[in-house]
């Protein structure tokens, strides 16, 4: 069974239809005036072994972003945010 991503528009679909942009940084993806905060947001990762909030882009479907919470130890997605 491939990893399945719950899309609010298209339903549960295989991961191959999506592009994963990885963990959602604290405070989201927007830029700021603080160079140090920008550096950390762009380069440094939590890379957590456990629950991770992450974004997937449904390129072969509705072409919208989906935010989910996935356990990186088991790949189980337990919440769509």
């Amino acid at each position: 069974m491939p990893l399945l991503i719950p899309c609010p528009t298209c339903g549960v679909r295989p991961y191959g239809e999506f592009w994963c942009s990885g963990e959602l940084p604290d405070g989201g993806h927007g830029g700021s005036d603080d160079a140090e905060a920008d550096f950390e947001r762009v380069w440094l990762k939590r890379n957590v072994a456990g629950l991770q909030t992450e974004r997937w882009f449904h390129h072969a479907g509705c072409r919208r972003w989906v935010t989910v919470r996935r356990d990186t130890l088991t790949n189980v997605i337990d919440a769509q945010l």
Partner: protein
Amino acid sequence: MKLTRGDFRPSYDVVIIGGGGHGMATAYYLAKRFGITNVAVLERSYIGSGGTGRNTTVLRANYKTPETIRFYQESFQLYATLQEELDYHMLRSERGLFWLAHSEPQLRNQRERALQNQHFGVNTVYLDARQVHEVCPQIDMTGGGKRPVLGAAYHPPGSIIRHDAVVWGYAGAAQRLGVQVLEGIEVTGLTIQGGKCVGVVTDRGPIAAGAVLSAVGGYVTNIADMAGIRLPIVSHPLQAFVTESYLPVLDHIVASADLHIYVSQSARGEVLIGAEIDPYSSYSTRSTFPFLASAAARAIDLFPFVAKLRVLRQWTGICDMTPDYSPLIGRSEVDRLFISSGWGTWGFKAIPVSGLRMAELIATGTVPPVLAPFALDRFRRDRAVPERASAGTH
């Protein structure tokens, strides 16, 4: 090979976390070249159980940037004499490595790779389609009727070597010099006093150390978290599989830049197939059917005979991927805590140079020039070492 069993000492000059290739090689060179023998390697499972025992063992030096080429050249040379140095048979076998292009942009890339390699003294030549066919007639030049092969960068020194023998060879030689290799002991914390790392905490009690090296492959974030350090690393699974044994028909290692797969045949006759990382981060080593189906289809496009073979084993390792696909190795923000990471999908071939130069750094306190470009703070200094196209899959 017999490992040291029994109790560890209360204190060591150097404690190395992780009994993979990088940890074991560092231990060996600390003892052999720098006379530091009061060293322990702590492995939570069995030695070589991580990426080092799961990889597809391609040795090569055909990278792109001068810094990286110099680094992998040194490693390749150390590998060439490793069996004699460690007195251990490793089935090293020179095969010649193709990097096929099936598109105009890749053709340009492979030409450029050959020229750049030659400029830095690496033996890589550009071959057109006819020459590819002459050197390796097993390749289906039509690419399964879908992706015709247009040309290739060919790296004659490209080799394979038995991966677990590399770990065992280093472990045995290190032990003969007095290093303790301890299996079944997990590091659960670091002891840090006044910004300095002075030991580790394990599931069997604390151990004091003059220096600590993290060499835990895809699990480096776990150790960095213990020190409050954040790294530019994301852990991705990388899968591979082998078929049942077949007549020895394929001498070469064949990688395709457009199909993102590579194929070789082991001494046992198994056809070994690797491809790209899973497209999401994970610590799960469960192999997946989508990977198998997709990589097998691409392998059959290049080698139609593979279609008849049955799959024998499929497995997964966890890779510590960096944004620029280069190693992340050196001192950390915490004094006397060293990190050997960023080995991603490409780190097996780097084991000797990384072990030797990390040992030098720990022993002398001076960063060896060959390691300097890969320092942990390079992204802060805007000094990425881009190698994505060269390190991508193996």
